[in-house]
């Protein structure tokens, strides 16, 4: 069985800083996403699963519709497996109700005027993201015991929480430690992959222009996100 821990916005420098040894595994580094004009989540995960740059195709949908992208399994490397299980991956089976609600609250945070109102929205936003994280974590741990030859669990918490809280070191460390614990619970060979990292703007977080990868079997150097379709095919 091959497992991919797909972590949105997992930041290389924080994995180092917080000593997340399970996330680092034996080999780890940054991915090269310089072929993309911006580090957009939907573009990057769609490009990962198809093994080709999907920027033009995704951007043609427009900012609103791109979040509803659902690629056919035949257009992805998941099709190479007999019984794959994919959890909440953008561009494939993203849980749109949840993530639409997150973006709605994000917009509301910027729309309200007073700091008090912003604090209220931030709490609601954080609670929504943490609750979803717990559900995804529970589902991921359950499917690890099932009969799948490929499992991909997508964890959005570092990205969603990071946008409004990246300067809150304690909160980010808590999230990274939890993600590290999830990686530590995996028994089989796995890849950790992020679409992009995150850089700090005061208390907030913006996408950085590189991602994170790790394996315990091969030094991948500075791979593109589109290289992973072939890397995973070769692992079969």
């Amino acid at each position, binding site marked *: 069985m091959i497992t991919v821990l797909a972590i949105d916005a997992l930041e290389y420098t924080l994995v180092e800083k917080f000593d997340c040894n399970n996330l680092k595994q034996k080999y780890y580094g940054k991915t090269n996403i310089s072929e993309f004009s*911006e580090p957009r989540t939907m573009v990057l995960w769609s490009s990962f699963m198809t093994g080709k740059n999907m920027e033009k195709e995704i951007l043609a949908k427009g900012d609103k519709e791109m979040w509803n992208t659902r690629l056919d399994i035949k257009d992805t490397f998941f099709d190479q497996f007999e019984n794959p299980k994919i959890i909440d991956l953008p561009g494939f089976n993203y849980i749109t109700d949840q993530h639409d609600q997150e973006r709605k609250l994000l917009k509301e945070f910027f729309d309200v005027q007073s700091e008090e109102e912003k604090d209220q929205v931030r709490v609601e936003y954080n609670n929504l993201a943490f609750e979803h994280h717990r559900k995804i974590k529970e589902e991921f741990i359950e499917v690890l015991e099932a009969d799948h030859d490929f499992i991909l669990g997508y964890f959005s918490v570092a990205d969603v929480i990071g946008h409004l809280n990246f300067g809150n070191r304690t909160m980010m*460390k808590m999230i990274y430690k*939890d993600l590290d614990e999830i990686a530590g619970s995996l028994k089989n060979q796995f890849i950790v992959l992020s679409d992009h990292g995150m850089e700090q*703007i005061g208390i907030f977080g913006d996408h950085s222009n590189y991602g994170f990868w790790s394996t315990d079997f091969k030094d991948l150097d500075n791979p593109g996100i589109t290289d992973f379709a072939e890397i995973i095919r070769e692992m079969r």
Partner: protein
Amino acid sequence: MEYGEIKIPKEIISKIEARLEETGFESVDKYVTFVLEEVIKEVGDDEPEEVFSEEDEKKVKERLRALGYLD
């Protein structure tokens, strides 16, 4: 890792239990361990926690719009 037991007031445990939902921690044990680790590491760690600023908010709002988060 080996574990030991400590005694803390039930009142504190109740307060932590009430906060668990909004922290992402699964248990009081994990929460307390994390907080104690942070306190222990605090000595010599002079990195300040960031606070809200309107200038930062404006910058990140523009970036999130460019990334498609805010239509």
